[in-house]
C-alpha cells in the first residue's frame, strides 16, 4: 500500500512539494520578519538600542506600564481560571455548556470591539459613568481600563487549559483527601493544585504573552496618552508613526524577545504536560484492562 511507505521517502514529489511549501511559509511569515526586527533594532549597535529604550522617558514608562498591567491581568485570570475550571469540571448544572461557550467569547470577538464595549460601560458617557464620576474613579483612559481590557482578551487562556486536565483527573483524589480530614484549602493546595500545576503554568505563560502583546482592546481604552497610558505595543506603533523607526524597532525587539522566551517556556512545559498525560493514560489503560478481566471473571 502506498500510504504505508515511510514519510521520508524522497522519491515522492508531493511530499517534497508540501514540505518545501511549509518551510517556505514559516520562513517567509515567521523567521524572516522576526530576524529582521532584531536586525533593525541592533543595526546601530547595542548602545543605540539601549539608549532608545532607556533614555526616552515615554518608552521607559511604556515598558514599566506593560510590566505592571500584564501581571495583574494574568493574576486575575489565574484566580478566575482555577475557580471557573473547577466549577465546570466538578459540577453539572443547567447552562453549563453555555457557560463554557461564553468563556470563548474573547477569542471570537475582535479586540477593538471588546475595547469599545468597555468604553460603553465604564466611559464617562457610559452605563456606569455617573456612578464612577461620583466615586471619582477613573477607569477608561487609565490604568484600571488597561487591566480590564487585557484581562478580557486573555480570559479564555487559563480556564481553557485547566478544564480538560481537571476533567481527566476526576474528583476522586479530592474526595479521598476530604475523607482523610483535609479542609477545602488543604485539598486545593495539597491535591488539586499539584495535579494541575503544569497545565496552569502553560495557561499563565500563554496569557502573559498575549497580555504583553495586546494592542486592539488596549488601544481603544487607553486613549493613547504618551507617558501615561501607552503600553509597549502602543509605544511601538506611536514611534513608528512618528518616523522613529530605530526606536520603534528597539521596543519591538523587546516584545519579540519576550515571545522567544515564551516559546522556550511553552516547549519545556508542554513536555512535562505530555509526560503527565502519558502517566494518566497508562494508569487508566491498566485499570481498564483489569476491569475487562473482572467482567470475564464474573461471567466464568
Amino acid at each position, binding site marked *: 500500500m502506498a500510504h504505508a511507505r515511510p514519510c521520508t521517502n524522497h522519491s515522492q514529489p508531493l511530499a517534497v512539494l508540501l514540505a518545501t511549501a511549509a518551510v517556505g511559509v514559516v520562513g517567509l511569515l515567521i523567521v524572516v520578519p522576526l530576524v529582521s526586527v532584531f536586525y533593525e533594532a541592533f543595526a546601530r549597535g547595542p548602545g543605540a538600542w539601549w539608549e532608545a529604550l532607556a533614555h526616552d522617558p515615554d518608552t521607559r514608562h511604556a515598558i514599566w506600564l506593560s510590566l505592571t498591567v500584564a501581571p495583574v491581568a494574568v493574576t486575575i485570570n489565574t484566580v478566575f481560571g482555577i475557580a471557573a475550571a473547577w466549577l465546570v469540571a466538578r459540577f453539572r448544572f443547567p447552562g453549563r455548556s453555555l457557560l463554557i461557550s461564553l468563556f470563548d467569547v474573547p477569542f471570537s470577538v475582535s479586540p477593538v470591539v471588546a475595547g469599545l464595549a468597555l468604553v460603553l460601560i465604564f466611559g464617562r458617557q457610559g452605563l456606569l459613568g455617573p456612578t464612577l464620576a461620583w466615586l471619582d474613579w477613573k477607569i477608561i483612559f487609565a490604568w484600571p481600563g488597561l487591566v480590564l481590557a487585557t484581562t478580557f482578551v486573555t480570559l479564555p487562556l487559563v480556564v481553557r487549559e485547566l478544564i480538560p486536565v481537571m476533567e481527566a483527573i476526576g474528583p476522586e*483524589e479530592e474526595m479521598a483527601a476530604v*475523607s482523610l480530614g483535609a479542609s477545602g484549602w488543604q485539598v486545593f493546595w*495539597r*491535591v488539586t493544585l499539584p495535579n494541575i500545576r503544569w497545565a496552569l503554568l502553560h495557561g499563565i505563560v500563554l496569557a502573559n504573552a498575549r497580555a504583553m502583546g495586546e494592542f486592539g482592546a488596549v488601544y481603544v481604552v487607553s486613549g493613547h496618552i504618551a507617558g501615561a497610558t501607552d503600553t509597549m505595543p502602543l509605544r511601538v506603533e506611536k514611534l513608528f508613526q512618528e518616523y522613529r523607526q530605530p526606536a520603534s524597532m528597539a521596543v519591538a525587539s523587546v516584545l519579540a524577545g519576550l515571545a522567544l522566551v515564551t516559546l522556550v517556556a511553552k516547549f519545556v512545559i508542554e513536555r512535562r504536560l505530555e509526560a503527565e498525560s502519558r502517566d494518566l493514560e497508562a*494508569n487508566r489503560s491498566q485499570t481498564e484492562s483489569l476491569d475487562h478481566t473482572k467482567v470475564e471473571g464474573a461471567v466464568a
Partner: protein
Amino acid sequence: MSIHVREISKSFGSFKALDRVSLDVPEGTLLALLGPSGSGKTTLLRIIAGLEFPEEGVIEEDGEDITERHARQREVGFVFQHYALFRHMSVFENIAFGLRVRKVPQAEVTARVDELLKLVRLEGLGGRKPAQLSGGQRQRVALARALAIRPKILLLDEPFGALDAKVRVELRQWLRRLHDEIGMTSVFVTHDQEEAFELADTVVVMNHGKIEQQGTPDEVFDHPATPFVMDFLGNVNVYHGRVENGRAFWHGIPIDYPEYPHAQAREARVYLRPHELEISSPAAAANRLGTSLQASVLRVTRSGLITRVSCRPHGSDQELQVDIPTETARRLQVNLEPGAHVAITPRKARVFVPDPEYVI
C-alpha cells in the same frame, strides 16, 4: 463502633438510588453490600462515609446522630474503587496525608507510616510514586492511607474490582485476616457474590435501592428470601409453573409450598440450583417414581472439579443444567453420552409466588 442506618432515601434527579433503607452494622462486623450496578450499594456506602447526604433518614454511630456530619469529621476510612491515590505524592506521603492535615509531629508521622508500610507489606517502597506500583500494591497503599488516621469504621468501594483474579483472591484472604486482627467495623461494596460470601460475616443483598435480604453467608445462600436473590446468586434453573393446595409441581414432581394452602391455582416460579440436582440411570430411578424425571443428555462440559451436564427433560423444550462433582461423575454407573437417557432427582427446590397472601 456500630452503625445504624434508619429509613435512608436518596435520589439523583428522577433516579431513586436508595428507597427507605435501614441497616444495622454491629461493632466489629465485616459486612458486604452485594448487588448489581445501580442497586444503590455504593450510594449507601458514600452516605455512611459522609461523601453524600441522604434526603430522608438518620445515620447513627454508637447511637449518636451523625447524619449532618461532614466526611472530614466522621473518622471513617474510605478505600476508593480505583484507589484515588495522590499521584504526585510518594507512597509515604500518601499514607501520611491524613496525619499531615491533622498537624501530627514529624516523628510520629514517620513511626506510624513505617508501621503501616509493614502492615501492608510494602516496606522499602515508601519512596515510590503510585504510577510505579502494581494494582495490588496500589490497593494496599490505599488501605494503609485509610487506616493511618485510626478510623473507627473502614469502608471499601469494590476493593478488589480492578485487580486480576489471582491477586484478588490473595488480597481477599489477607483483608479478612487483617480485619480479624484489628477488629474494626468494616463495610465493603461488591458485585461479586463469591467475594461477599468468602469475606463477610454478614451479606446484604441490594436491588433497586432496597435491601432484598440480610444475613450470614450461609443463611443467604441456603435460604434466599426473594426471587431476585436467588437469581443474583446466579446459576440457577428457573421454571414457570403453578402452585395449589400447598404444593407446586415441576414435571410432575411435587414440591411442598405450605405458604400457599389455597385450592385456587396460582402462577409460581420453581428455582433449582444445578448442584442440588442428582443424576442417575433411568433404571435406578424407576422405583423412585414421582420424585425424579426422565431427560436426554445434550452435552457435558468439565471445568475442573465440577462436571456440568446439560439435558432436556422429556416433554419439555427448556434446558436443565445439572452440576455434579467430577469425582462422582466418574464413579456413577451412568451413560453421559449426548443423547443418552438419564433420570434427574431434585434434592432441593424453591418455590416463589408473587405475594402468596393474595388470593385470586
